[in-house]
């Protein structure tokens, strides 16, 4: 939900709007590099930025902005800290958002969305490139503006390619363990986020859905990782069962991606 709009938007900008300035070349090089960075580095980024939020909001001993920017004469706060403490914290308290984000679904989601963003951008770029220019030229000839062309002609034609890329990126995000380990996801939790135990719970008590992004969570690869490291053979059986579930889910998603790709390739006649 986070990475798809941003990723598709970035790819559209790079393919349709960007001129060949040094800035666009930098962005392209940047995205190619980001795609190759090990997932553990994204975990560390997520830890510092989303989970601990640079140490701004807790009274702990370490504060990244202080070591970066120094402090004012009153010894306590530099500018960013001031903004954080006096502006952002009251707003967050009003909205009941816990700061720093800590171990919440939102922190994990933001980290993983950064991880899959380059993959989505690259696959969307490929999908957009595969559309012949005659489609765009015909649309311009009928008097459409650039955005109208993109929105009504190019994007609908590129949807199968984009969808395939999104599903592949999603399946990668599902299987990733390293970033979750680094941001400190617990390996066992008795409750689902927001205390939603069934669909009936959701209907009776909809506030759970609003609370859910700000509560703690755990993930299947994390649980499997924990089981694998235990010594007893029963845990090996448990780990195998978890792996079967995980692989089944991933196989399902990859098959859907392949089916979408094949069905739409038959339909398109340029």
């Amino acid at each position, binding site marked *: 939900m986070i990475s798809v709009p941003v990723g598709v*938007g970035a790819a559209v900008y790079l393919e349709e709007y960007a001129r060949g300035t040094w800035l666009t070349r930098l962005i392209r090089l940047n995205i190619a590099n980001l795609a190759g960075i090990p997932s553990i580095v994204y975990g560390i980024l997520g830890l510092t930025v989303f989970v601990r939020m640079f*140490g701004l909001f807790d009274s702990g001993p370490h504060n990244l902005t202080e070591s970066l920017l120094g402090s004012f004469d009153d010894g306590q706060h530099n500018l960013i800290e001031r903004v954080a403490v006096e502006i952002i914290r009251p707003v967050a308290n009003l909205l009941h958002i816990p700061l720093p984000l800590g171990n919440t679904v939102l922190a994990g989601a933001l980290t993983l969305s950064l991880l899959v963003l380059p993959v989505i951008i690259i696959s969307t770029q490929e999908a957009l490139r595969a559309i012949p220019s005659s489609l765009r030229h015909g649309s311009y000839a009928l008097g459409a503006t650039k955005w109208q062309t993109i929105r009504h002609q190019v994007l609908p034609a590129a949807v199968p390619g984009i969808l395939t890329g999104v599903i592949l990126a999603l399946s990668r995000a599902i*299987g990733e363990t*390293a970033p979750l380990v680094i941001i400190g996801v617990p390996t066992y939790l008795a409750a689902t986020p927001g205390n939603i135990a069934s669909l009936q719970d959701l209907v009776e008590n909809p506030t759970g859905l609003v609370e859910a992004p700000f509560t703690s969570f755990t993930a299947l690869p994390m649980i499997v990782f924990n089981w694998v490291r235990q010594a007893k053979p029963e845990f090996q059986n448990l780990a195998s069962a978890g792996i079967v579930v995980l692989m089944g889910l991933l196989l399902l998603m990859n098959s859907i991606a392949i089916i979408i790709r094949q069905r739409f390739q038959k339909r398109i006649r340029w």
Partner: protein
Amino acid sequence: MSSTTITPLERNLPGGRPSLARKFSWLAAKETAIQSVLAACALLSILTTVGIVAVLATETIEFFKVASIWEFFTETRWTPQFEDKHFGILPLFSGTMLVAGIASLIGLPLGLASALFMSEYASPRTRGIVKPTLEILAGVPTVVYGFFALVFLTPYIIRPIFRGLLGLDVDIFNAASAGVAVGIMIIPTVASLSEDVLRSVPRSLREGAYALGSTKFDVCVRVVLPAALSGILASFLLAISRAVGETMIVVIACGQNPRLTFNPFTSTETMTAYIVNVSLGDTPAGTIEYFSLYAVAATLFVMTLAMNILAQFILRRYREVYQ
């Protein structure tokens, strides 16, 4: 239509003709707004890189306030969690290189061979089976590979071969099983990238070689491979950088014992495994162990970034231009 007198009311166009454009239209404003939003999305990627570099750099500087740079690169012990602290990255680095080396030995030739098979020898039906299988192999989570290495590779393959037949001593956690698993993991990466490159070699090259009387093997090895060499090298580099950055397999199968050694049958620790193991324990923020985490991550980041940039450079500079 031409006019000899130009009144100040007419817009400034060549020849004094009035401009028919509206000064402001909602449609144009909407277009500009959407373009700005999309540009912001693209700039977010730069923000991500800047964020990574800034975070790693500042915390690593904090680390080097306590440990010295010389010690970091030359000391052969890595014990930040013990009483007697030593901060030499060499044991972790040798662990990473050992695993990546074994992985490259296994993954690169097998991947290249698969790519050659799929692009030159396979019938379309075989290709239709092999390619999705490789894609599925690429989608397997690395925890599964780690589990596979620990539970299947070590007891049933590595130990019988090396301990049973050759009499070497094989720990339960060893770099060889992790290396083999990482090698299997990078086969799809090498295969798909190399296959794209091999397929882009034009048919005229191959047909010219056949016309001169070469066998199929000759054509593959002496004509197609050299033509595609830059792309294949780039794919090798990307696969090695992936093997270096691999985390979960080595955490599960390799061990927690940082040791400067070239023996793949003992337990060692790699850089990525150290980061994970420190995160799993309880390390308060602001201590030297916490900063050592960032220092190791910065080293890893620099290594993989260098390999990726080199791969891009090779791909761009030495790409063969076919007419």
